[in-house]
């Protein structure tokens, strides 16, 4: 059972948490400007990395706050926990963030062009 450190409540067992999947999927600011294919990238395509992976969890049986985690999906080792709206600081986290295909996706460019999101 994973031991996850909620930034607000401290370390807890994973069954107190709800998993939110890949982190940093920016919602397009002007979706109407995207083609169906580009929209599908935002909506359905996943990074699903084997290794350091940036993901979202919420402490659903606790403070109900969402936060980000860098976890190695090959070993389940948790490398870093950081708040919503921020970017990872660990070398693994930074590498995983920058290496993600999404950084070049039309959907993300669309999002960045408009309102800032996380």
């Amino acid at each position, binding site marked *: 059972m994973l*031991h996850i450190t909620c930034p607000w409540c401290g370390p807890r067992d994973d069954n107190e948490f709800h998993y939110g999947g890949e982190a940093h999927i920016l919602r397009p600011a002007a979706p109407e400007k995207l083609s169906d294919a580009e929209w599908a990238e935002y909506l359905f395509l996943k990074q699903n990395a084997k290794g350091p992976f940036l993901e979202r969890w919420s402490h659903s049986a606790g403070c109900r706050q969402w936060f980000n985690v860098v976890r190695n999906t090959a070993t389940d080792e948790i490398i870093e926990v950081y708040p919503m709206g921020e970017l990872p600081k660990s070398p693994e986290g930074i590498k995983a963030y920058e290496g993600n295909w999404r950084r070049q996706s039309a959907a993300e460019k669309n999002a960045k062009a408009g309102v800032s999101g996380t």
Partner: protein
Amino acid sequence: MSGQSFRIRDKGRIDRSKPVRFTFDGKSYEGFEGDTLASALIANGVHLIGRSFKYHRPRGILAAGSEEPNALIQLGGGNKSEPNLRATQIEIFDGLEAASQNRWPNLKFDVGAINSVFHRLFPAGFYYKTFMWPASLWLKYEHVIRHAAGLGKAPPDRDPDRYEKVHAHADVLIVGGGPAGLAAALAAGKTGARVILADETADWGGSLLSESDCEIDGKEPARWVEETVAELEAMPEVTLVKRCTITGYYDHNYLTGLERVSDHLGAAPEHTPRQRLWKIRAKRVVLATGALERPLVFTDNDRPGVMLSSAVRTYVNRYGVLPGRKAVIFTNNDDAYRTALALEEAHGRVAAIVDVRASVTGPLADAVRAKGITVYENHGIVSVQGTQKVTGIEVMQLDADGTGVTGTAKSLNCDLIAMSGGWNPTVHLFSQSKGKLTWDPEMAAFIPGTASQALASAGACNGTMGLADGLKEGVKLGAEAAREAGHKGRAPAAPKATEPAQGSLRPLWITPGKARLGRKGKHFVDFQNDVTAADVQLAAREGYRSVEHLKRYTTTGMGTDQGKTSNVNALAILSDVLAAEIPSVGTTTFRPPYTPATIGAYAGRNVGKLFEPIRKTRIDEWARANGAKFEHVGQWMRAWYFPKNGETFRQAIDREVKAVRDSVGILDASTLGKIDIQGPDAAEFLNRIYTNAWLKLGVGRCRYGLMLKEDGMVMDDGVTTCIGESHYHMTTTTGGAANVLSWLEEWHQTEWPDLKVFFSSVTEQWSVVAINGPKSRAVMQKLCNDVDFSADAFPFMAMKEGTVAGIPARLYRISFTGELSFEINVPARYGLALWEALMEAGKEFDITPYGTETMHVLRAEKGFIIVGQETDGTVNPLDLGMDWIVSKKKPDFVGKRSLERESMASPERKQLVGLLTEDPQTVLPEGGHVVEKLKPQPPMVMLGHVTSSYYSPNCGRSIAMALIKGGHARHGQTLHVPLEDKVVKVTVTEPRFFDLEGERIDG
């Protein structure tokens, strides 16, 4: 000693003052407190304990611990009966009933043994090669196979015992209470760290309790154990758990253990569980799980009377029983010589030591020879006499490379063979923790390599075999673990230990027989599953060259012992065939649990009433008292309908449905999800979440809203009301409440954190009663005089606060029936009072309580959808003909872009329509499918399915809604609903059936 003729006078830790009577296969025996079933049977000279899985060969006792593959027992009777227990782990108690398994009619004469006559037809994997023709017969073949397989029997009915769970946190968890574990616990404990020490047996000391030839700090080992345990027990932060097998090593140093709390007492005392499942999160773990002795693979090495050498020593020294009067020791290492000496010391006789090593020297060999025991160097056992108990053996000299034998066979009489093929460190938990194993050629065994979690291995499980070294390692790692867990303090000095020195072993994985392997007698590798060396070679020959293939093809290591005694032998024999290094062939992964763990313990208290809670409203009691029938909705129990004496379901529903439209009905709507939304950006937030516009909703006004997933599909719906400046009250479906709250929080926190808005679930805070029907205004007026109920003052989709029957309330004029209707929200605790007041006030109008079914019929008459009935996650608002609620003006809302995909408006999509059956009395079954072109029999093309279907007394006919392909363009068409027994003709209509102009809303 009443029958215990193999009891040794002056040895053992059993309590001779406490005789214990038990039965085995119906025959009564006596043992002593402190005996295991195995030791007590040996004391009585009983060695035939069970039958093997495949060939039904007679089997005895191989080991003295949890690695036992043979001596499996069905314990007890009735609902407390338990199959497949190891006789070597069962502590006996008065009245214990044990029975052998997998034999018929009895153990001595077992018809199944016929299999070993035809054994040559049953090599490994034979079943993959036959039973194929004719195909139709496989189920018959299989029936026979299934009944031949299996071991013990499940109890007939419910388990009378109770199980509990312990959630524990430790600085240091130490697994194993042998010398290394005790030393580690002491060292860690002295630092003040929170230590948990667990051992799977009933007694502390592990291997020390089996030895008579070593000393610790000048004391008998047992003395040292007592003193150490006493010292540990005096430490407040140290927890000692006996009879607790650590079964699983999971992520982030989370381990599970199974504690057998009262099994050894026969019956659990009151307020005591039978077993406990420990769930331990440890900062550091020290594994001190010891090592398991390997059998030697020689001809007919499975006969009762063939035992592991260390087990023999355990029976002699710990339990004070003689496994045989005349023993032969068969070994490839020095340790077995200690067994010879222990037997001599216990007045047993040792006929000879057969050693595969070319020349044997050293203190142990000298001591043995000094006792006049013959040592056959470079010899092997080539045959075993006796089927139900060993009566003798033949030994021959090994040839140069040990693959054959030379010279002539010498016969020896004996009734016990104590064998030792060396030791396998117990690395199961280390491997479960995802640590990497490495091969140690010295020991010819796998030992822990690089760890991947915060753990260390001490003593024999780390390949550190010597007692002194094991103690030293325990002390060092125990102190280290405590320090890493944040507790200072120096490691105490390690105790001094003396024991006979040992030389090295000769790994000889197969002891050759007189004939070629597989031609005469059987060299067993896996005893429980009857896998022989020949089977392993066959698998390799047929190309099953991966260890996992070998395991799965031959089933070696797949028994209830998970191959504790067989895996390395099998692996070594395989690599011999492949002419490869053992480590390069690999090792199989060890899977939890270490030993089989009770299912009931995993379930714990979450059974029966505590399996999953049921939610009830404050009005639930009243409904029960008034004969309501209930249905499960999500976690809730909801009143389904209120049959009056003798009414059928249909009669009750017809009455309730009519009553609402003719006068007034009352419904407990408390289960609806309710979310209180506040903050300056609340309106903006709703505007992004719902498909329609929310920015201009005035205070005291309600609006219906539809929520989509980002993929454009309908997720939930409900009425949301503006309570005041930046304050809203959202309602959701009963089942969707929790999801919707999470949904709102997720969007807010992860997408729009800049919006100032807050959510709290208030589902439990409000009791909600809905009264519907033309007379509902009159009822309200009787109970509430501070609200003007006229249609102009209190219009549809408005909310007012007032006092109803003296209770402060929020009144919502909303309607799920199309009737004049008020939903009265009061603080939850007043729910029942409000309900009773309304019933009283409504008497003169014959107010009628109704449940979910009537609610469904009423809304269906009006064509209102129910999310989860008209939708299933694949339906969008356009499909439902609800375009009117999808804003064209809003730049964006959740799901908008997905709705704009061409496919979402495709005329081919399944769209919501009404269906009218040709015969108005016929009510379609919900889930029935609609077809256009009827065929005499399936398959036929389906257009879609009936989502809702009822008899509507107000329409005087049946009504139905359906989702069908291109439905919106099919109005007027005649289609068919083919059912198992008949075909129903239907006409497609609008999905609305009653009060089409909506004239009834104001009463």
